[in-house]
């Protein structure tokens, strides 16, 4: 295991290249990415369609591996890990919020959120109940425990998805275009919710978006274009908040 330089680094990417084979040629999606994400950051990955932001999220989410380079999650080089270890890593350290919510329709809202806890194991029914209910309360769905996902609106589903991503207390929550399937008002509500959680619990968020409007809420914007990161523009008004959240995360 090779660790990043500092204890606050949760994600470190070193010279990450990802090529996708397309027929006989291989198409580069990422062309050498170096990136570090810190605890408690609320970060947006911004780029146009095909810029490589989804691919980058996949690398960080350990659902795909880079062609070249290294990806460290919480100090672990995931490129060296087995499928089993990666699965465990996703379960314990990562939370996912999907563009299409990806809830299991055959389960209730409650069961969907409970799922990661069951997979992690080691929780009593009581503990699970407390955690699930607390989170559903937090996302404003405490009255919808027994509902099926398909009985909910898009926004509500994404809230369930957020609760599910958070219930296992991940190191970082990854959200791939979480607002793409929502109208702009709901989308904004979702970003606000994630931001609120980031503020209150210090959970690290990284989400991709092509929506410039949401950028105003974030600590950090990472622009990506053609598989390469562009220079970041510092966001002054958020610099104070970063120290606060980091403290919360450390204490929590």
């Amino acid at each position, binding site marked *: 295991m090779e660790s990043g330089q500092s204890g606050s680094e949760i994600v470190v990417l070193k010279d990450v290249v990802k090529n996708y084979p397309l027929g006989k040629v291989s198409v580069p999606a990422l062309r050498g990415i170096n990136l570090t994400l810190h605890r408690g950051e609320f970060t947006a990955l911004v780029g146009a369609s095909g810029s490589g932001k989804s691919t980058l999220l996949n690398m960080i*989410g350990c659902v795909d591996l880079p062609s070249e380079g290294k990806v460290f999650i919480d100090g672990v080089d995931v490129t060296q890990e087995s499928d089993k270890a990666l699965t465990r890593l996703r379960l314990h350290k*990562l939370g996912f919020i999907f563009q299409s919510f990806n809830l299991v329709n055959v389960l209730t809202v409650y069961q969907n959120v409970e799922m990661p806890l069951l*997979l992690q194991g080691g929780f009593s029914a009581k503990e699970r109940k407390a955690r699930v209910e607390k989170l559903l309360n937090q996302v404003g769905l405490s009255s919808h425990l027994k509902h099926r996902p398909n009985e909910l609106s898009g926004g509500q589903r994404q809230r369930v998805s957020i609760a599910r991503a958070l219930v296992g207390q991940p190191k970082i929550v990854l959200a791939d275009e979480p607002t793409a399937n929502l109208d702009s008002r709901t989308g904004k509500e979702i970003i606000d919710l994630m931001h609120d959680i980031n503020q209150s619990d210090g959970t690290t968020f990284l989400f991709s978006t092509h929506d410039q409007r949401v950028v105003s809420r974030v600590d950090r914007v990472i622009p990506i274009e053609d598989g390469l990161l562009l220079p970041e523009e510092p966001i002054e008004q958020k610099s104070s908040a970063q120290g606060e959240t980091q403290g919360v995360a450390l204490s929590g």
Partner: protein
Amino acid sequence: MDKGVLQLVFQLSIRSLWSHRVKNLVVGSIIFIGVFLLVTANAMLDSVSRGMESSITASITGHLQLYDKDAQDQLSMMGMMGNFLSKPHIGHVADFQTLRNEIEKHPNVKALIPMGTDTTIVYGGNRIDQAAAEIRQALKQLPPELTAQEKQQHLHAHQQHLQDLIDHLHREYQLIIKFSGKQTKTALALADLKQARKETFWQKLMLEPGPNLQFLETHIAPLMDDENPVFMEVIGTDLDRFKDTFPRFKIVKGGMVPSGQRGVLVNDTQYEKVIKDRIARVFDRVWEKRNEENILIKDDKELGQYVERRAKEYKQWLLSFESEARLDIQQALQTFLNAPEAELDTLIPEFLALSDENFLARYDFFYTHIAPKLDLYPIDIGDKITLRKFGEGESQQVIFYGTYQFEGVEKSGFSALFHLVDMTTFRDLYGFMTEEKQIEINKLKKEFSTVEWARINVEDELFSSEEGLIAEISLEAEKEIPEAEITLSSSQNLSRAERQARRLTKRYSQIEIDQGAVLSAAVVLHDETQIKKSRKEIEAIIQNKSLPVQVIDWQKASGYVGQMISVMKIILVIFIVFVFLVSMVVVNNAMLMSTINRYGEIGTLRAIGAGRSVIMGIFLLESTLLTLVAAFFGAIAGIITVKYFHAVGIAAPRFEFYFLFGGPRLFPDIDIYDLYLGPLVILAVSVLATFYPALLATRVPPIIAMSARE
């Protein structure tokens, strides 16, 4: 797997089973039907197998058969039919007594019954001989002082019968000469026939029967073919113990062979269907088809042809009519057919032109007017018949005491396979040297050769030692053979014929029956469910006591008949494989569809941290649950069906099924074994069929979740 993970797997499986309930209902129904069919078919087959087992074990083979350990071929008691030209070598067991003593010590052995099967031929006899014997007997009854004419009047019927037979032969020989020229042999025959047709021949015969009857027997009788010989497959056995041991055995006509005596019991089915008068059998068969199977002549091409073919044989049939009967039958038929002037030659074929419309009236007429005048059975109960070993000269005369049948399976072909003959006669026929036979041989030596006095004394001692064994002579036998009225003291002076006659009614002791060779021995058990265990123990006894026998189960011992069960088992296996394949394809397809439909869901589960084992678990559990539920209901439906048939029984559709059903109705029952076979097979199938789709599902990459659309 962790408890939480298990809970999740269950949750997901049950939920998705429910949410795809229409599809699962279809898949479940197919599994349901598969299990239902397997359970019922298996139960039915088991019941048929038990029915057959009961048919066979309770009538012929017993539960196990013991036979020569050095036999070159396998004992197959019922496999011999149609195969008697190449008899298998099954050896023999020289000392039955010791075998019986040892084997019957086993607590589960009810009895050890000696057995042997052999093919014999019974000749029907010569009509001229028979008619000559009849007239000789009749002449004895008449006062000798009567004139030839008076005697001829008294014996008109007998004379007419003989003359008819001679006329028939005369016509035949005239034809032979016409077509193939006058050869010395035929010319002589014709001359003899002419001689016998002279009126003076008959007058002389009446006054002094000896020479002319002899002429008929030596010159005329050989010109006439003997009646069709009947092949009789016999089982030689200890008749008394056979009767007491095999529960299905019953006497139908006549009576049992007197205890310990020689005798033959003719199979009733064969008596009715092979031995009985050929034309009477036509009426019987049409009647049986009509009343028991609801088949009319016009419905059954084969039956129609049979009726026609037999009707053409009327000339032969006419010869079997006694002269007096001829006239009566002619008169009756003239009235019946409304043809006052017609001769029998035209009446009979017309009468035998049976149709569905005229059958009942003619059947009635046949049995009320014709049958009583006929010799319906060429051998009658009480007759002495001569069993001739097939292919060899060995022959034995025995009294035919009655017909027997195996209860419940009367109408099946299997029950008609064998006739039963006493063990002693069987041994003689088969050529085993018995003590009695040895004595007989010695006796012959004494009569025909010069022997030393000392040896005669020895033989006398031997013979007189046997005298104690001679017991009462049955009344039935007495009627048949008055020569058998012998006294013990005169036994040493008996002629060969007399000794033969005496043998017919001699009562053999159990020791005599047991001492000697047998071909095989049937082990009949008290508790037939213990066949396997008892077999092992019996084999141990054989080993310990070095008995020269080997054990074979009833199924093998019965030959091709027992193998029918194996054939049916194979059919069941094919059926199971078929159900297996269908279920496999269905489940496989359903699960593949499920994998494809749930691609996104699987990806999501993988992305949020579900391992491959979880995915595999979900799929396997889903199909297992589905199968278990469907199989449970399938089995319940099977039980209900079988229990229903157990209560009402299934009627045998044809007589051939009696044997399979162990009687006219099959009462199938179910046992635990039937119950778990079907569900287990299906369960294994579903798990197997799910395995590949499930494996594919575990291969769904988590990245799918990223692009998944709900």
